């Protein structure tokens, strides 16, 4: 009985696992490329020829947006419907779904998931591996590549495992998923915010803290990146993390410079979760911190007029100021490979990623645009946070094509350097730490 049951259950589970995604992925992606063949008119500005809808009618779609984007997405969809008066829409619903969980929810049950959804760049590989993403319609690729920042398009372009073709998998939505420096203008002046040494000194003098999370790989990879040990996709095997060539001595010197500051400013430099930063500003215990764009509303509220934001500072390595290099992600709109209305889903995603929609998002909910025209608008140019994010994005590594081993290894690197007994001037130990970290990331340990 027990055996039969166990076999039955195991069988069911494998069956469901296989049934998960895959399958119809090809069918719908071919459907979307057909739709591109049908229309000779090139798409631009978010609007397409009605012929592109093909024979899809009585359309009902589900769209996932994060909570604070739901009402705006609803408005935008109303506009979308009005743009195509001859197409019959049954229902396009917007459901709140946090981006951090989007890929998990989608892979769990693609049939019940959204047709068009918002997700951060680091989930791209997971979605691609599960074959849950329908690639961007060929009719849109040219326009999207032209109007969006190069980095955002490049990061969503993956090599197809079979055909070895470069395929664009998602529609760029934002260029803002990263962290930057926030500071209390009463403690740190705009000028001192340019160097890490200056910030730490100003904080120490004012008996305030500086928060940067050193135990979380997302933040602590900054140490390695600044030293030149920058990741660059995968090796040819498609699994091992590849690093750009770097000067090991320089990387070690940079790490030593970081460790020196950590030791010198022990008690000032706190390694804490950035979720604490807004509270710290409010209580007046904090002078500056490295915080993510998703917390900027709370930070602004806590500091009021004293809110300062800029790109990450520089650090002095052997007399030379080096800019801190961070991890930086983008957000995309993806189309579910299992959608029943692939053409409409693609047209909608294309519209939602257009200049018009990005402009509205920047103005209403403060999302940093990926559209180069919107990036140049006065509104974006005058927004301190958006400017800080945009400036940091130029000194950053795209958060895409990252192996799971990366985060823990980088977190350990930060934790080791932050440890009480760590000797900042021990070159051999630092070198060994760097080598172990790289080996751990590449899973060679």
């Amino acid at each position, binding site marked *: 009985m027990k055996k039969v049951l166990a076999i039955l259950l195991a069988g069911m589970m494998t069956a469901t696992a296989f049934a998960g995604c895959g399958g119809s992925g090809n069918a719908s992606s071919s459907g979307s490329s057909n739709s591109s063949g049908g229309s000779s008119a090139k798409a631009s500005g978010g609007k397409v020829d009605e012929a592109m809808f093909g024979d899809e009618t009585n359309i009902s779609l589900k769209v996932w947006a994060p909570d604070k984007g739901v009402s705006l997405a609803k408005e935008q969809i109303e506009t979308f419907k009005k743009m195509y008066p001859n197409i019959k829409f049954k229902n396009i619903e917007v459901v709140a779904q946090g981006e951090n969980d989007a890929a998990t929810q989608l892979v769990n049950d693609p049939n019940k998931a959204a047709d068009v959804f918002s997700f951060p760049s680091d989930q791209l590989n997971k979605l691609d591996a599960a074959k849950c993403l329908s690639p961007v319609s060929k009719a849109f690729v040219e326009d999207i590549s032209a109007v969006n920042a190069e980095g955002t398009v490049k990061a969503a372009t993956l090599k197809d495992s079979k055909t070895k073709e470069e395929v664009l998998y998602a529609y760029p939505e934002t260029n803002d998923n990263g962290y930057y420096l926030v500071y209390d203008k009463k403690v740190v002046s705009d000028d001192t915010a340019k160097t890490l040494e200056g910030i730490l000194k100003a904080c120490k003098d004012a008996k305030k803290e500086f928060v940067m999370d050193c135990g979380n790989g997302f933040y602590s990879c900054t140490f390695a990146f600044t030293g030149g040990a920058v990741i660059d996709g995968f090796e040819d095997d498609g699994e091992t993390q590849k690093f750009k060539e770097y000067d090991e001595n320089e990387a070690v010197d940079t790490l030593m410079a970081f460790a020196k500051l950590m030791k010198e400013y022990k008690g000032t430099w706190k390694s804490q979760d950035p979720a604490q930063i807004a509270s710290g500003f409010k209580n007046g215990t904090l002078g500056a911190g490295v915080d993510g764009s998703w917390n900027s509303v*709370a930070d602004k509220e806590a500091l009021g007029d004293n809110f300062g934001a800029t790109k990450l500072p520089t650090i002095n390595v052997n007399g030379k100021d080096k800019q801190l290099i961070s991890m930086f992600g983008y957000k995309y709109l993806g189309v579910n490979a299992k959608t029943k209305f692939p053409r409409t889903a693609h047209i909608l995603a294309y519209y939602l990623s257009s200049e018009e929609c990005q402009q509205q998002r920047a103005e209403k909910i403060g999302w940093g645009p990926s559209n180069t025209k919107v990036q140049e608008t006065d509104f974006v140019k005058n927004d301190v946070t958006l400017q800080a994010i945009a400036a940091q994005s130029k000194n950053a590594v795209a958060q895409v094509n990252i192996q799971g081993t990366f985060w823990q290894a980088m977190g350990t690197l930060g934790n080791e350097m932050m440890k009480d007994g760590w000797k900042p001037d021990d070159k051999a130990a630092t070198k060994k730490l760097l080598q172990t970290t790289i080996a751990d990331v590449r899973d060679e340990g």
Partner: protein
Amino acid sequence: MIKSYKARRIISNTLIYIILAVMCIIWVSPFAYLLLHSFRGEGYVTVNYLIPHEFTFDNYIKLFMGAGGDASINFPRWFLNTLVVAIFSCIISTISVLAVSYTLSRLRFGARKKLMNVGMILGMFPGFMTMIAMYYLLDAMHLTRTLVALVICYSCGAGLGFQISKGFFDTIPRALDEAATIDGANKNQIFWKIILPMSKPIVVYTVLTSFIGPWCDFILAKIIMGDDRANYTVAIGLQAMTTPEFIQAYYKQYLAGSVCVAVPITILFLKMQKYYVEGVTAGGVKG
């Protein structure tokens, strides 16, 4: 060596009390933190001191009044969902557990022993092993993302947890059954009129455990509900409040929500405790 018995007793008692006090503080402090900080007025997420500087009811008010509009955080709705699920699964599973236990304790039929063994074995599988299979079975019945699915999952397997109540029924003398049979009662009447009134402690125990289940279950509810926030239960709802998207604005409301979750369980326990004690003292046959 201390000779005096009194001195030795004092020393050993002090030691024991110190140990107990330390353990008590460790055990109580999370609850104290939860309660204190659910009234905290200042700050966003956590703060680095224990006693809040400002006390306010705002977190509770916002928790219950702030919902609506486009915000997908809707605690009152989640609370109600959980309550409904808890009440239904409590009723169904209590009846089924007691009926199964009575059957296995009093009736004699062919596969009784074998059925009991199968029940034991099935109960040994960890619950999450079957969850994915359960999800797809429910999906085939078009029940995913509904509260009915939760009631089904929580109550339908409940009969397998018969061991404890069967043990209790076994202690009630069969002489009572026989007496009732002589008086003309059938098995059904014996169960409702003789056995049940004498088994209050075990009924209360079953009610309590099956009522608490839905409030605490996380994994199954999360899998079944997916993206349908309107049908969330408190456990997954509260977890959603602590995701990076919401934590800045909702952390204090999350603490307040955690306190509120304890309320229905506490009320039920206090109400039931009376019968519980009554049942224990009044049960059994006298003379």
